[in-house]
């Protein structure tokens, strides 16, 4: 009997884990599997510029370079939402630009692929690398 229990236990754990996904309350509020601070850290980068509008425009241009189609943008709040089709139902991303002190801008991005939030640091690293290229071009070239 004990062996049976021991065998069934991991199976039950999987069932619990999977069914946990379907709980609507948990879906709406519980942020994620990652801690809030950790999530914010990997989704944010700080850039040395005081120009919010130019930063927003660079974010938009970078998203377009990555083949995203812009869904909406708000200059006051500093948000841009865009979708890229392909790969399991599309990648949807919201980027927010906020001033950090007098001389810096904090750019925060969060994305979901299909029906799953992206909580791995690597995709965000890739995005910010692309954005850094764009910021460099804006600052140094006739763009």
């Amino acid at each position: 009997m004990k062996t049976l229990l021991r065998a069934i236990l991991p199976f039950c754990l999987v069932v619990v884990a999977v069914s946990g996904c379907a709980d609507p309350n948990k879906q709406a509020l519980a942020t994620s599997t990652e801690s809030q601070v950790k999530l914010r850290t990997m989704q944010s980068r700080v850039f040395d510029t005081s120009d919010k509008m130019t930063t927003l425009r660079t974010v938009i241009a970078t998203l377009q370079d990555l083949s995203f189609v812009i869904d909406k943008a708000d200059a006051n709040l500093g948000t841009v939402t865009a979708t890229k089709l392909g790969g399991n139902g599309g990648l949807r991303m919201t980027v927010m630009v906020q001033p950090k002190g007098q001389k810096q801008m904090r750019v925060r991005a969060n994305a979901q692929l299909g029906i799953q939030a992206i909580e791995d640091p690597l995709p965000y690293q890739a995005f910010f690398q692309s954005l850094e290229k764009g910021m460099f071009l804006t600052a140094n070239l006739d763009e």
Partner: protein
Amino acid sequence: MRLVPHLRVLALLLLVAVAGGCANHAQISKDMLTLSPQSMRNRQLQTKRYDTNDEKMMLTASASVLQDLGFQIDESTPDLGIIVGSKTRDATDAGQVTMAIFVAALGGGSMPVDKQQTIRVSLVTAPMARPKDKAAGAAPAQKLTPKMIDAACARISAKLQLSLDDELRSVLPQAELTQAEKALTEQFARELNGDLTMRMKNQDYGATRVRVTFQRVVMNTQGFVSRMEALETPELYKEFYEKLSKSVFLEANDI
């Protein structure tokens, strides 16, 4: 109790599947967020430069073209130069329908075919700053306009007439005085007007770039999404920009 080892293997497989799915998910999203080698080519394809610093005019002209093409405007944020539109159209493909009839005739049951598609467009304008503008700071230099030239000529003519009047009143009879004043002021105004107009025509009005992207989502007869794709045919973009250039011309001439 033969079931026990099987259950254990099954649970292990499920765990592997869940974990494997996650890794794959991260990899796909990482690839999607990395600039591809074609991104530069696409940027060139989708972007066009217009010699005007009037971004609002470019947006209006663009919105008009989208309307010409039957798009509904869903969103617009002029401060960031964004217009988003969409249209829903028929996506029935004759080949697909023939195939479905063929399959049904062979007893294969009803096969879903593409029914309708939603085409989405997002258009972004951006001012292209020149290095000298950036060096000068945020305040843009004031540009010469025909109105300014007219005002300058009118003012200088009035002033000139007054001073000529003062100078020559004592030495010339009234009729000759009027004649001389008229000739001198007219000539001066014409020269000034010509010089300033030449300057105006040579001044640099800056540039605005427009980038447009199209994508489509196709639904089949069963109501499921059968295809989602970015539209990347060069002809599509070429045609769009031909229409936009016309629209800019119409807008500039108020037609």
